[in-house]
């Protein structure tokens, strides 16, 4: 990641420079979106979460310590925003599940999957994304940072506030869980 010129942009943003902050957004928006998408498993939620990440960063930019890594700081915000969202969503999901027991189940073709599932490649991708979204959140966060964003274990550990060994162990477990869940699909891809 290009850290050199970013220091100047961060400094300008800390003085209230909107243009500098907009440039920081352009540099990181795709990666942040990718991360929050993997964490939430939903494109619409990911869009809202990415907005929330940058808003939070703007509100807190004055407290960012110069000399530390801006992208690590930004990714930490993204992980925390995602975890908060998932907690809230979990509570709402539990409530919805309770309500659904009382409701008449809806049937028919209305609940069809998204258009991306029409092609085989996109279908595989969607199923993998769905499996990733079903991982326990610590495993999911590690997987999203390391596989999704190509981070080293060391950088992922800095973002998540844990040791490299923890990231390594979580990655191993995440792969094991995904492999167990996607075994037929992975066999299909091989053939």
């Amino acid at each position, binding site marked *: 990641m290009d850290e050199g010129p970013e220091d100047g942009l961060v400094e300008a943003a800390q003085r209230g420079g909107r243009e500098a902050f*907009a440039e920081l957004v352009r540099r990181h928006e795709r990666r942040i979106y990718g991360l929050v998408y993997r964490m939430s498993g939903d494109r619409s939620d990911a869009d809202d979460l990415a*907005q929330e990440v940058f808003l939070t960063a*703007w509100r807190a930019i004055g*407290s960012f310590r110069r000399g530390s890594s801006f992208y690590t700081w930004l990714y*930490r915000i993204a992980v925390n925003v995602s975890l908060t969202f998932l907690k809230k969503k979990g509570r709402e999901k539990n409530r919805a599940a309770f309500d659904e027991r009382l409701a008449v189940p809806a049937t028919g073709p209305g609940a069809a999957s998204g258009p991306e599932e029409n092609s085989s490649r996109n279908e595989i991708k969607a199923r993998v994304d769905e499996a990733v979204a079903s991982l326990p959140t610590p495993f999911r966060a590690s997987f999203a940072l390391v*596989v999704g964003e190509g981070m080293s*274990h060391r950088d992922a550990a800095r973002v998540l506030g844990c040791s490299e060994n923890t990231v390594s162990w979580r990655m191993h477990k995440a792969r094991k869980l995904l*492999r167990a869940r996607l075994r037929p699909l*992975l066999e299909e891809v091989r053939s």
Partner: protein
Amino acid sequence: MRCRTAEKRLSDALDGALGPRKRARLEAHLRTCPACRATRDALARLGEAAGPSAERSDEDWAGFERRLEARLDREPAGRRAYGAPFPARRRLAWAVAGFVLLAAVAALWFAARRPQPDLTAWLADPDALGPVLLEAEADPEVGRAVESEIRASLEALSPSPDADAAALAAADPLFWEGLSDEELEALVVALEQESGVGGPK
């Protein structure tokens, strides 16, 4: 190398987190183990399928930036600290803990400063009993304490009830009347033997 270890190291190897020596040992194991080779291939396919997925058009990104700009217009750049989740709740917890600690320290301080009457002074000096009794009349708590001291002192002075049980029984006229002639004679013999003096005939 066992297959379980190999599987763990495969994960590290895919992330580029395996040192050269461990990598060499893993590769040696893979050359001889078809099951672990199959695992490696499956994990590699999984990594490919789970790669970057933020495929959006430039228009999507332009829309994203416009919406963000509109929201940022309403937000001044702040100095709000970031990194501690739920800071308000944590501040409240510290405030409550501080208040409880202060209250406990204050209670101990007041308890230590309150003068305690010497409830045993009257034992050494009978003239000291007067002021203690006056104080006991004024304060029920002191009164109860004095009463318990007096009871304890009286119990210490009086003989144990078990020690004189036999004497008390002997003093009871009904005790003697209840004894048969044979029992009385046996007692007399026992007393004569014990004291060496002849009893009443």
